[in-house]
């Protein structure tokens, strides 16, 4: 079977759980400790598709102000992106549309999957489904609630992205 390679990016404000999502997806583990990503971190994951393999080269980009410093050149050539917000921090919500626009500016046909992470912290949740829907409405009509800690919907998010890229 042939192997198709794709570059994808994880985008979102700082400390929303991008690196944790990737670690859960790639290594199937979770760490409580938080280490801020400096610049970019690279990971890879092979997905078995219907009649081929799909190699995801995942660019985990530093969020927040670091992203502005490093520059959006890292987005070049990406086939898609998972854009993440932290359900327990409302200030991370506007970043969904912000990063989506930046991604589309670089790659107009890029696939986008929106994710509300830390769904396991039910009591701390401040962002509702409706708020997410409102934020992403012009760009997409669906989103996923994930938990890097429990692994909830993590694989589903990446598979959804793969479907959109190859769809």
């Amino acid at each position, binding site marked *: 079977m042939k192997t198709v390679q794709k570059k994808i990016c994880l985008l979102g404000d700082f400390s929303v759980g991008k690196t944790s999502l990737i670690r859960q997806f790639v290594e199937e583990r979770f760490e409580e400790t938080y280490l801020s990503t400096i610049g970019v971190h690279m990971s890879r994951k092979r997905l078995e598709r219907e009649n081929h393999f799909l*190699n995801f*080269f995942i660019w985990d980009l530093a969020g927040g102000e670091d992203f502005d410093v490093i520059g959006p050149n890292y987005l070049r050539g990406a*086939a898609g992106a998972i854009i993440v917000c932290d359900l327990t921090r409302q200030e991370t919500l506007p970043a969904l549309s912000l990063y989506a626009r930046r991604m589309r500016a670089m790659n107009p046909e890029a696939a986008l999957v929106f994710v509300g992470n830390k769904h396991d912290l039910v009591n701390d949740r401040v962002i509702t489904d409706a708020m997410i829907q409102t934020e992403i409405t012009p760009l997409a009509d669906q989103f996923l609630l994930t938990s890097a800690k429990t692994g909830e919907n993590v694989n589903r998010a990446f598979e959804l992205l793969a479907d959109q890229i190859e769809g």
Partner: protein
Amino acid sequence: MTPPPPDEQSSAPHFRKNDADLLRTAQSILFAQERERIRALEAEIAARKDAEAEIAILKKQIERLEAKLIAAERAYEDKVLDLQTNVSILNYKNFGKSESLLSRLSPVFSRLIGQRIEEDREEMAKTFSPIMGQAIRTQIRNSRQDMIDALYPIIGSLVQRSVTETLREIQRNIDARLRQTSLTVARSLRARFRGVSQSELTLRDALPFSIRQLFLIQHGTGLVLSSHPAEETELSSGMIGGMLTAIREFARDSFGRGNTDTELDEIQYGNERIIIRSGQYAYLAVVIDGVEPGGFHAQLREFVSDLHLQYDAELRDYDGDPDSLPPLQPKLAQLSNSLTKGKKREPNPLSRAQKLVALFVGLGGVLLLGVACFYLQFTIALLPIAFPNPTATSTTTPTATATATVTPSFTPTATKTPLPTPTNTPTASPTATPTATHTPSPSPTFTPEHTPTNTASPTMTLTPSATPTPISAVMIGHVYALSEPRLFTPRTGLVFKGTAVTITAVYDTWANITWTDSFGVHHGWVLLKWIDLREAVPSYLITPTVVN
């Protein structure tokens, strides 16, 4: 019609009546025709009048139409003028300046062209390519300075990169040569035995160099298009491609200072280095160990350039699907081979027979060298026996002095008589023989015509002066000693400056000297000016010369 004569009228009244009838008939006939003609003429006149009236009407109509036409023309001209005025006003108001027009239209054209390019890039390239060259030429002709200003940042940067690279190449070559220490001949032989070129062997020995891996990576995405050696899994090479691309982007953002022409072209880690050569859509990363040989970078650049010329669209449009790529792996393998082995044709290694012949020749040479050494040593050992200590040489001199005493004589015959060594002491026997060569020298200078008068003189040759004492002196220059006291005679040896010599005879400006060196005792004639005389030359050593 003429009336009948009078006599005929009076004589026949009946006839007159008939005539009158006839006349009337004829008249009526004639008049009828005339009337017809008159009517026709009148009708014609009437028709003409009608026609003239119609013509007049038509003329009037034409005049009216002409008047209308003129009026219309004038109205049209007025309208044109009005329109022109309006256009001028509009131009003045809105598009008075060409820059304004350009600034208004350029976004529209840009959007149109951009949209078209996005729709069909290849088609647009084909459309523009025929006029690009001409457009550039025209622009250069029309505004050369503008083009220079526009191209300077690119050309300047290109030239700078090229010069820098060339200088690096030269530096590497110099380093390589400085490291070369082995003998050339030995190296050449070794190269022949190994079947490689001498330069290759030199470089290989001096600078260990190997290529670990080659990656061809797409810009932006960092996806690896191909690698060599081909990996079992594409994952690690893919990671390398991604990270390299990220590092390049980081370096450009951090250190490029907005200059997109400069790129990261080398990463070093210990002995390993990653050399990067960039093309428009992909770049080549070569992981090497050691110091790369001369021409390495030029070869990489050529490869990337050729690859882009050949697979321009494929490299640009690659979206991760390997089916869309041409077979790049063999090209990388070929490049790797040519980089490590070089493009030059290797000399064939020696055959077994050739190696044997070379071995025998070498052994023979060594044997000959040994024999030569032994012979030389043997000769040196025998030298003192063959040529004893030259202390006796002083005793030889008397022979020369004897001749001197004889010379008065103007008799050549007499000069020969003293040659016999009786005057010499017996000890001088071996070395005395050469003295015979001295004696003839004075004789040729004398003309035979004197001899008759002096024939009696030979008796004088037996004068007791046969036992003169030679005097010592020192050479003040490096001089060749000659066999006779005149120029252009055979040399007997070289006397070095500072050598102690013994003067055995003097003739004119020449002195006959004897000296000793490691090879034995030598004799010869040298000019007096090269000798530092420590004492006056005794008269018995001086051969008188004829003064005319």
